[in-house]
C-alpha cells in the first residue's frame, strides 16, 4: 500500500492538468463534437508533460530548486516577472474556477445554490492548505480523484465500436459539421491543458516538499509515468463516453451534469455516486494544486521561504499569499460568475507562460552545478527541444484561434 501512495503526487498533479473543472467540461465537449478525432493530441500532451515533468522533478530532486527558482535564475527579473504575472494569472483563474467547481459538484447532489456553498468550500480549501500535511493531502485527494476511473468503466460498459474509435483517432480528419479553425482551437486547448505550467510548479515543489534527493529519481519517474498517462486515460474516457452518448444527440456540453450523464446511463446509481466523489475530489485536488502553485511561484520568484515542510509561521509570506488567494476566489465567485467560463479565459495567459516556463527547465537540466551526474541525456534533450518548438507554435497560435473561433463556438 505504501508503494501506491508514493505515486500520489504524480496522480494529484495530473488530475489538476487533465480533469480539473475546466477540462472535465472541455473533454466532454470534445467528445460530443469531435468524437475521438482529437485523441492523438491528448496522447501528445501526455508525452510532452512527461518529458518536462521528469526534467523538473529531476532538477528538484538533485538540487532542491523548484521550477520558479530556475525561471528567475535563467531569464532574469524582467522576463521572470513577465512569466510570473502570466503564470499566476493562469493559476489563480484556475484556482477560482476549481473552488467554484467543487461547489458545482456538490450542487449536483444537494441542489443548494453554488453561491451559498462557495464560502464553505473556500474555507475548507484554505484549512487544508494551512493545516494538512502535504502527504495526507496528496494521498487522500489523489486516491478519491481516482473515482473518475468510473468513466473508463462506463465507456467499456457502453461498448462503443472500438474500431471506429481507433480509425477516428488515427486519421487526420474532423467531423463534417466543424470547421478547421475550431478543430485547431480544441486541439490547442487540449494540448495546453495537458501542459499547463502549474503542473510543473506543483510537481517540482512537491518533490521538494517530499524531500526528494538524487536517490529518489526512481520514485520521481514512477510518479511521472503513472500519474500523467492516468490523467490522459481519464481525459480520453470522458471524451469517449460523451462521444457515444451525447455525440449522436448533437448536444453542446456546457454543464457538469451533462458530463456525468453518460456514466449514469451506463453504470447507474452506483456509477453516479463514484462520479460525484470523483468530481469533488478532482476539483478539490486541483484547487489545492493551483492554490499552492500560486504561492510557490510568487515565493520562489522573490526568494521567500515557502512550503508545507516548514511550520506556517516560518513561511509566513507564503501562507499570506494563500489566504489572499482564497479570499479573492471567494469574492470573485460570490458575484455568480460561471467557473467554467473562467478557465477558458486562462488559456490566453497560458500562451505567454508556457515557453517561458519550459525553456529554463530544459537549460538547467543540462547544468552540472544543479544536476551533478544526472544531467540530461541526448534523448531527453532531443525530446525537450521538439516539445519546446511545439509549445512556441501553440503559444503563438492560441490567442488568434481563441478570437477567430469565438472560444470554440465556430466561425
Amino acid at each position: 500500500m505504501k508503494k501506491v501512495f508514493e505515486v500520489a503526487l504524480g496522480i494529484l498533479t495530473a488530475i489538476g492538468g487533465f480533469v480539473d473543472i475546466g477540462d472535465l467540461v472541455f473533454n466532454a465537449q470534445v467528445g460530443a463534437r469531435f468524437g475521438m478525432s482529437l485523441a492523438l493530441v491528448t496522447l501528445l500532451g501526455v508525452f510532452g508533460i512527461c518529458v518536462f515533468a521528469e526534467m523538473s522533478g529531476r532538477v528538484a530532486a538533485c538540487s532542491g530548486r523548484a521550477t520558479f527558482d530556475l525561471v528567475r535564475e535563467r531569464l532574469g527579473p524582467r522576463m521572470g516577472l513577465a512569466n510570473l504575472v502570466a503564470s499566476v494569472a493562469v493559476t489563480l483563474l484556475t484556482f477560482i474556477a476549481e473552488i467554484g467547481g467543487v461547489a458545482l459538484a456538490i450542487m449536483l447532489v444537494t441542489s443548494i445554490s453554488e453561491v451559498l456553498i462557495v464560502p464553505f468550500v473556500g474555507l475548507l480549501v484554505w484549512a487544508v492548505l494551512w493545516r494538512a500535511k502535504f502527504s495526507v493531502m496528496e494521498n487522500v485527494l489523489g486516491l478519491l480523484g481516482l473515482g473518475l476511473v468510473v468513466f473508463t468503466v462506463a465507456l467499456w460498459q457502453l461498448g462503443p465500436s472500438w474500431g471506429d474509435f481507433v480509425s477516428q483517432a488515427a486519421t487526420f480528419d474532423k467531423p463534417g459539421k466543424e470547421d478547421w479553425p475550431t478543430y485547431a482551437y480544441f486541439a490547442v486547448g487540449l494540448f495546453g491543458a495537458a501542459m499547463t505550467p502549474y503542473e510543473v510548479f506543483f510537481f517540482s515543489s512537491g518533490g521538494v516538499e517530499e524531500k526528494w534527493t538524487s536517490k529518489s529519481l526512481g520514485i520521481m519517474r514512477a510518479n511521472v509515468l503513472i500519474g500523467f498517462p492516468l490523467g490522459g486515460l481519464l481525459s480520453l474516457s470522458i471524451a469517449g463516453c460523451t462521444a457515444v452518448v451525447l455525440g449522436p444527440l448533437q448536444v453542446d456540453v456546457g454543464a457538469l451534469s451533462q458530463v456525468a450523464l453518460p456514466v449514469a446511463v451506463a453504470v447507474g446509481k452506483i456509477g453516479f455516486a463514484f462520479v460525484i466523489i470523483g468530481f469533488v475530489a478532482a476539483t478539490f485536488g486541483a484547487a489545492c494544486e493551483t492554490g499552492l502553485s500560486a504561492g510557490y511561484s510568487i515565493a520562489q520568484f522573490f526568494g521567500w521561504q515557502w512550503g508545507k515542510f516548514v511550520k506556517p509561521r516560518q513561511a509566513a509570506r507564503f501562507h499570506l499569499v494563500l489566504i489572499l488567494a482564497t479570499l479573492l476566489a471567494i469574492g470573485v465567485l460570490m458575484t455568480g460568475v460561471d467557473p467554467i467560463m473562467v478557465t477558458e479565459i486562462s488559456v490566453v495567459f497560458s500562451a505567454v507562460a508556457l515557453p517561458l516556463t519550459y525553456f529554463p527547465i530544459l537549460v538547467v537540466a543540462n547544468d552540472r552545478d544543479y544536476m551533478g551526474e544526472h544531467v540530461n541525456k541526448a534523448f531527453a534533450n532531443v525530446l525537450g527541444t521538439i516539445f519546446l518548438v511545439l509549445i512556441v507554435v501553440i503559444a503563438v497560435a492560441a490567442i488568434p484561434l481563441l478570437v477567430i473561433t469565438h472560444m470554440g463556438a465556430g466561425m
Partner: protein
Amino acid sequence: MPPLTNRLDAPWLDAALHLLDRQVVDVDGKMVCNVDDLELIEGAGGEMAVTGILVGAAALVPRFSGRLGNWLRATWISLGAQYAARDVPLYLPLDLVEHVGSDVRIRVPREGLLDRQPASGPGTAQHRMDDFLGMDVVRDGERLGHVLDVRLQPRKQESRMLVVSLVVGRGRPGSLLGYDRGDFNGPALVKWAVTSLHRHSHLVPIESVRSVDWDAGRVEVSGPVEPLRTS
C-alpha cells in the same frame, strides 16, 4: 568534474550567471532571500570587487530597467515617502557566504540577519552590479558590445571577490546561459542559437579597462582582448 562543486573553490565565477537571482539559504536550510543585486566597490586605485549581496525591493526594482522600471521605482518610493533611505537596499556581507552552487549558502541563521547597506569606506565608490552589466564597451573608438557578465576571482580574500575580466558581446546579460563555461553542453538547437548570437563575444581582462563612466554607462578599453569560446 565532480558533481555539485562549490563555485567558490573554482578559479573563477561569473556574477550574472552564478550569483545574481540565486536563492540564498541559511545554515539551517531556511530560505533567506534572493540575490537581487551585488555591491560593487571601486577602490582608489581603480580596482573593482564584489563585496556584498543586495536584497529587497530597493535592489530588485531598479533592475526592471526602462519605462516599467522607472515607474515601479517611483511608485515604490512614493509608497513610503516618509521613510529615509527608501532607495538603500538590505545587505548581506560576502564573508557570510560559504557555498555557491545551485543556491548561495550562508554560515549563520537567518533571524535578524538583513540590515541596510552601509556607506562605503573613504576613497572608494559604491556601485551596483546591475548598473555595470549592459554598459557599452568601446575599444579605441570601436564598439565591442555590452558587458554581458563580470568574471570574478573568489576566495582570495573572504570578504571580496576581485573583478578579473568582463564578458563583452551582443545581446543581453544572461543570454550566454552558461555555454561559455566549458562544462555545459545543452541541447543542440539552443547551443546553436547562443553560439551564433555570441560569435563576436570577447573576454576583456580588467587590465585592459581604461575607464568606466558610470553616468554615461560606458567602458573604455584598450589593449588585448581575447575571443570568447562557447563550448
